[in-house]
């Protein structure tokens, strides 16, 4: 898994690519929680994520819940088939704010 965080349009954009699995989800979790601490708006770009499992989803959920408690805007952008499938199965596609593109979220 690769990740990067940048500021854009008043938001922190956290980009992940590769496989967000049991090995790498602890890193994803820490990156996301750190973003929520640092900004009032966090966009999570998952366009490069080839695979995400329940541990990766748990990282997203934990960051989302922290953001909600803190009044931080938190959204997912650019889901590909893999991420969308897992989120739909877990019925989390109705819980998260999801934008088709980063531009939509900014």
């Amino acid at each position: 898994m690769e990740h990067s965080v940048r500021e854009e349009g008043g938001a922190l954009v956290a980009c992940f690519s590769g496989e967000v699995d049991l090995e790498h989800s602890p890193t994803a979790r820490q990156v996301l929680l750190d973003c929520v601490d640092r900004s009032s708006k966090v966009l999570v770009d998952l366009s490069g994520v080839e695979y995400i499992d329940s541990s990766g989803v748990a990282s997203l959920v934990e960051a989302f819940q922290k953001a909600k408690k803190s009044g931080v805007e938190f959204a997912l952008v650019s889901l590909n088939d893999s991420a969308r499938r897992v989120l739909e199965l877990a019925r989390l596609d109705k819980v998260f704010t999801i934008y088709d593109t980063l531009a939509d979220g900014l």
Partner: protein
Amino acid sequence: MGEPLLELRFPARAAELKPARHAVKEVLLASGCADAVARDIVLALDEACQNVIRYAYGPGREGDISLTIERKGDELVFVLTDWAPRIDPSKVRPRDLNDVRPGGLGTFLIQEMMDDVEFVDPPPGCGNVLRMVKRIG
């Protein structure tokens, strides 16, 4: 008697899951599985392996996972074996999806992706054996 497609044995560690997933996906696609079906199966097997690592072995305990895949007609049969302490299958339950919280999705995803899922009696010397079936006909 089924047609054996894959036999893997690897240490129950998070870093071992990616190569296992890729080996499984390759075999599934070669056996004629559609991409979306293969993706679902890989996810279910990965979740099952995660459960073995996190809960059957648990922190600080090491051991192996064995995964076999067999084709029997229009069914793919997956058998996951570990050498961890026996778990109580009645305690393995999917959580309520309305309870939005991190974690607890693995068992739900396995049951959602596979047509049959059951713990079977392990052979002597083994810990737990999970048998899963996916109909692809």
